[in-house]
């Protein structure tokens, strides 16, 4: 295998594929990047067996071949080089990098030891707007669970079968749901539970001039193409809990409050909240919202009042401050609406738009008597 390529192209390709190289792995081969020549291009691939990334760059290929090269060392070397042409030659899995007067050698591993990546079939690909996908991912990924004992909740539910394309994530304490018109995927595929790490990666790579992301739905995996990058991910096995059941339909109390004022106040009051529960008490009375927190460890107490629009009966509800702040960060508006029912039922937090496509739900914490 022999090719030459510019260091800046190689550098940006390596940056893109490094996300799938596991920081630590029991399988040494996964710490490698697979280099393969394809016509006049060089293909770089990495995988952690759940997610894999492949990217193509132009190269001057003089001899075909493939090799697996230690990813971190290779990146360190390329990062340290100035912008120049580099010639790479592989002889019996020994990689020689030559540029100017420099000559670096590094031992690689046989390419056939590298796990086989899912095959991408362009004919099955469907393009969807990158900004739509990015927005849906950003608005939901934060709610997915990290609890490995409930694998289905570790993913984002992506529903593409109906008139609306929907993404939902929940960890059992909060839920985020976003939907949009589904013109391209309707009726083609069922529900899929996708690891948020893969979707975040797609969102990160689908930037700059990329306006569309290609999606290929396979039986066991999903493949996204963002420009020259291809990301494939395994999907999580369901079933996903029936989330519709937990979204209350008859919350009759409405609290409207300025978003940034609420966020700042929650953040301040939470400093003196319980370190474990981060509980902040919302005491809501006519047009006044009082936030309070206590921490017995410090003997601390914090109380702040802020104006709001509220016309229902007085109510006291406890929330995890971190969950409320996460949600407020996602809402793009000046004022937010909390739809409430009782002190022990879920609150729905939305923007003020009557037909908002985005909904967040947060479960209350039980207040001490």
């Amino acid at each position, binding site marked *: 295998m022999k090719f030459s390529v510019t260091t800046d192209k190689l550098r940006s390709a390596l940056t893109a594929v490094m996300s799938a190289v596991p920081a630590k792995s029991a399988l040494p081969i996964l710490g490698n990047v697979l280099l393969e020549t394809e016509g006049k291009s060089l293909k770089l691939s990495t995988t952690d067996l*759940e997610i894999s990334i492949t990217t193509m760059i132009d190269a001057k290929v003089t001899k075909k071949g493939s090799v697996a090269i230690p990813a971190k060392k290779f990146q360190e070397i390329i990062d340290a080089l100035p912008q120049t042409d580099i010639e790479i030659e592989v002889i019996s899995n020994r990689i020689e990098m030559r540029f100017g007067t420099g000559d670096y050698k590094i031992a690689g591993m046989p390419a056939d030891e590298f796990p086989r990546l899912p095959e991408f079939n362009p004919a099955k690909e469907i393009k969807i707007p990158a900004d739509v996908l990015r927005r849906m991912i950003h608005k939901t990924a934060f709610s997915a669970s990290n609890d*490995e*004992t409930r694998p*289905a909740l*570790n993913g984002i539910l992506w529903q593409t079968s109906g008139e609306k394309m929907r993404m939902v994530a929940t960890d059992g304490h909060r839920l985020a749901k976003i939907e949009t018109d589904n013109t391209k995927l309707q009726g083609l595929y069922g529900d899929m539970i996708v690891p948020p790490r893969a979707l975040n990666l797609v969102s990160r790579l689908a930037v700059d001039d990329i306006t569309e992301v290609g999606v290929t739905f396979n039986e066991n*995996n999903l493949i996204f193409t963002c420009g020259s990058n291809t990301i494939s991910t395994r999907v*999580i096995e369901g079933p996903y809990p029936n989330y519709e059941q937990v979204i209350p339909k008859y919350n009759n109390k409405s609290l409207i409050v300025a978003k940034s004022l609420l966020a700042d106040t929650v953040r301040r009051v939470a400093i003196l909240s319980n370190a474990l529960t981060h509980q902040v008490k919302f005491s809501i009375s006519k047009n006044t919202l009082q936030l309070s927190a206590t921490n017995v460890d410090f003997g601390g107490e914090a109380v702040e009042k802020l104006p709001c629009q509220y016309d229902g009966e007085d109510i006291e509800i406890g929330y995890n401050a971190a969950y409320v702040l996460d949600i407020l960060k996602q809402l793009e508006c000046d004022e937010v609406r909390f739809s409430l029912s009782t002190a022990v039922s879920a609150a729905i937090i939305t923007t003020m738009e009557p037909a908002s496509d985005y909904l967040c739900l947060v479960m209350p914490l039980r207040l001490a008597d």
Partner: protein
Amino acid sequence: MTTAKTQTLLPQAELYERLCRLFHENRLPSSLLFAGKKGVGKWVVANLLAKTITCQNPADNFCGECASCRQAAAFCHPDIYYLFPLPKDEDKADKLYLPYLQQKQERPFSDASDDVTSFITIDNIRKFQSNLSRHPSLSKYKVGIVYEAERMLPATMDSLLKTLEEPPRDSFLIVCTDQPRFLLATIRSRLQRVSFPALESEFVASYLKQNFEIPEKEVGIVTRFAAGALYNVEQLVEKAFFEARETAFDLLTNAVTMPASDLVVKCSGNTALENREKVERLLIHWQSMLRDLMVINALPLQTGIDPSQALINFDYADRYLEHRDRFASLQRVEQQIDKLEQVRSELRRNVNPKMAAISFLVQLNQH
């Protein structure tokens, strides 16, 4: 049958073929318990079955050539997961993961690690369960292999129970252990037990001939020592093992012929008792010899029956008979065998190996 393509000598071939047949007929239970003593081929069959289940050319048991088979052979198959005892320290565990599998590949009948402080922890099983919850990536099914399952911590067993109660779709779980009684009854009851019998003597002999360069006579002796299990067979074919056998017999004869004081003096200067490894080797021989003596003592005199057929150390038959009267004075040989077990466990607790061995011989002498 394709096994010949990948491994010329397959332990439990009949059992493996039966499991393959069940798989091809869609009748293979999704949760299996491979139970059998150490060294009878549980690991080999579990791995071959995993290859068969994930092979991309399902017409055969497994082809050994498709991407799936190749990745399974390199232990980087995205749909085959392993769970076995590893150190709690994550870095150490990562470093030992692949060497453990490679060691098992190389010496499938022996322990891959002598680290008795390693267990299957809750963190290990969570990762394993998380992998099983993914859709298969390369194959149609996923396979999880739990090896040395008796070394699961209680919390790990509880967690495994959850997986058994709600098995992930398109998955097979193979739990291997030589101590099934150490598993929770609720786990055992949810697994379909596959009992691994002792290996046939012909298989053991063929395995020894194929893998080690040892004389024909020693093949016979080791085959009898192995007693249908090839666990740590590498130790049994070492030259030192056979040298120790001679020493063991001499010391045993001395123990029943010499006064105790002379026996102690003789043992004190004996280099065969100088370290734990050597003493452990002697214990294996003494155990086999005491067992042989039980057989000899049970045979009536002058029956004309050749006792060598029933002896482990069959080549020592004449020597046993030569000292028959002396050895007959050993009361309750089975008690001596128990005593040997006691010495073995004392060695594990770090007692002085020489003292432990001398103490055993002296109490034989007193009988």
